[in-house]
């Protein structure tokens, strides 16, 4: 088989892309009956190829159940993908054994949506933030004393996320949602990772606190050159944070573009509807929201052809039969829609 174009980066030492997925799939079996026979599969992530550049923020948006969280977890191998490949710095980590994976985990971190359930209620903040050191060893430091190096690093981290030293001996329940998310972030930063998956990091927060958290994330990214995968259903937040935005619908990427291009020149009817659905805090712009009718079909039995065709206002007969591929339409803009990919004759698919 001919080499995939993405293989180039592995030859070059993976300088451009930090994380790449190639046709990544995650299916969950649906079991039925006494013997737990698998009767169907939930196509949570169904062939996603994305490349995340070093130092960028890639936003991933989509409605609930579209597979964005599963994708985030599969990239970190928190859930084992069913098919496809994950490359980290050009190295295939899809089937890396447990001990190799553990070493890698240092570099790959995640911040979860719900700060209330992602922190152990019985551990003090100091222990939570320092937990990674127990597994991966103390941080490198000029000081020889391990304990001291650890404590120094923890103090430094807690300061960076905007909390104070006397918070260290407290338990998670004593903090507000925004503060808890800061603790989760300090924990993620402890081992100096390269890549952080931010899975709806601000959805549980209030607007004014959300702004603080987003600013902090940006600041830390600039300081440490972090690469983010920012997963959210809130397009305004994603647009604020990301360099590029990808839209997921029923397990597939349907559009990917740099943020400006995405907002001003979106091509896919679903993306356009998504943008049009966002309530805008300006009563003068009381546009009649077009929106779309209908609801997301079940991922157990996704529609044939283009997955969006039952809700699409532009659907043609072809859309029901042939699945559109993600094609490059220039300016780093990719779209999976027959309206934009007719250059490829449909019969050849």
């Amino acid at each position, binding site marked *: 088989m001919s080499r995939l174009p993405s293989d180039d980066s592995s030859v070059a030492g993976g300088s451009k892309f930090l994380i790449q997925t190639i046709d990544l799939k995650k299916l969950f079996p649906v079991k039925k009956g006494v013997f737990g026979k698998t009767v169907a599969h939930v196509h949570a992530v169904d062939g996603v190829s994305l490349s995340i550049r070093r130092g960028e923020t890639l936003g991933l948006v989509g*409605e*609930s159940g579209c597979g964005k969280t599963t994708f985030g977890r599969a990239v970190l191998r928190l859930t084992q993908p069913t098919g496809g490949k994950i490359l980290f710095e050009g190295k295939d980590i899809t089937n890396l054994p447990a001990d190799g994976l553990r070493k890698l985990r240092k570099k790959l971190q995640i911040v979860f949506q719900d700060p209330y359930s992602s922190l152990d209620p019985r551990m003090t903040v100091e222990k939570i933030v320092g937990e990674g050191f127990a597994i991966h060893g103390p941080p490198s430091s000029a000081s020889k004393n391990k304990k001291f190096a650890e404590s120094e690093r923890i103090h430094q981290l807690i300061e960076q996320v905007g909390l104070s030293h006397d918070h260290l001996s407290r338990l998670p329940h004593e903090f*507000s*949602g*925004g*503060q808890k998310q800061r603790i989760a972030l300090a924990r993620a930063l402890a081992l100096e990772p390269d890549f952080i998956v931010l899975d709806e990091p601000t959805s549980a927060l*209030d*607007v*004014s*606190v*959300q*702004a*603080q958290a*987003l*600013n902090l994330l*940006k600041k830390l990214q600039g300081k440490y050159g972090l690469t983010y995968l920012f997963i959210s*259903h809130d*397009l*305004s*937040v994603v*647009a*604020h944070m990301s360099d590029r935005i990808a839209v997921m619908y029923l397990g597939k990427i349907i559009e990917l573009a740099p*943020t*400006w291009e995405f*907002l*001003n020149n979106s091509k896919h009817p679903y993306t356009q*509807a*998504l*943008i*049009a*659905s*966002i*309530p*805008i*805090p*300006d*009563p*003068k*712009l*009381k546009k009649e*929201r077009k*929106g*779309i*009718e209908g*609801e*997301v079909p079940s991922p157990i039995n996704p529609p044939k052809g283009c997955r969006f065709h039952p809700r699409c206002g532009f659907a043609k007969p072809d859309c029901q039969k042939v699945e559109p591929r993600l094609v490059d339409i220039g300016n780093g803009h990719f779209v999976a829609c027959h309206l934009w990919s007719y250059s490829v004759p449909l019969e050849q698919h």
Partner: protein
Amino acid sequence: MIPQRKPIVEIRGLKTQFIMREGTVTALDGIDLTIYENESLGIVGETGCGKSMTAFSILRLVPSPGKITAGSIRFKGVELRKLTEDEMRSIRGRLISMIFQDPSTSLDPVFTIGFQLGEVISLHQQIYDQNVLKKKTLDMLKLVRIAAPQTVIKQYPHELSGGMKQRVMIALALSCNPSLLIADEPTTALDVTIQAQVLRLLKDLVNKTGSSMMLITHNLGIVAETCDRVCIMYAGRIVEVAPTLELFERPQHPYTKGLLAAFPKLGEQKEELSVIRGTVPNLMKPFPGCSFVDRCDFANEVCRRTRPAMIEVFPGHLVSCHMYRGGGESAAVR
């Protein structure tokens, strides 16, 4: 502004407190609010600011150990606090109804949609003929634009999607033509594309039936699109009330300004979002002055000591801030 509208709900000096062993939480600290006929009023604020508690207080459904400790709530001239529990029950659902945030927990999982909807209609409208009842139920489902009402009527809540369930909730709430509909974060649990559908539906129906709506939300975008007037709450108090356009054009209270600025706007490329520093105060500690004082950039000694009164800075635009004691915008420029 439409002058001389008939008020439907008048709240004066309402205080709702949770008296507990650990101390007293003042969830609502003396609020004054009027809802007029045929209007939709948005209540905006962050978690714990008392927006849901206002709704629960109107319906007299404040969860224990909470209690309304002072003030009055008049609904169409009737003092709700003086009514007996039975009288109150005949008002709930029939004259004032409510839609909750999470549709999946507000429907009973063991009864069909048809039964639950029918029960409400039969109870409040005294319809006992099964055929008439079924027809009414179907009509309600059609009204909220459910595609296949004949099927849905026989289904259980778990068989419906979130958006469908919220439509059923709206049908339930509107089935008795209430004078006031309270919608508490009706679209928070839904996806954006569904959110838009549900909000549009809600707005249309309220317009059509001529009821008033009190829409509780933390999303200023939803308010901008749906409401005629907005009320901003902070730490159990109302800080600003204004017609929607007015509020977005010239917000007066520092908190409102901060809130508007902190909202990320689509397509606006900003390196940093403006924030409101600090966090919400502890409601267990009484504050003699302004509740926003610790996070306000303009706070002075007066703000710390005395509670600001509601001042009408522009017609229909009320704000509770010491900066406006002189009235008008000129006082704000300091």
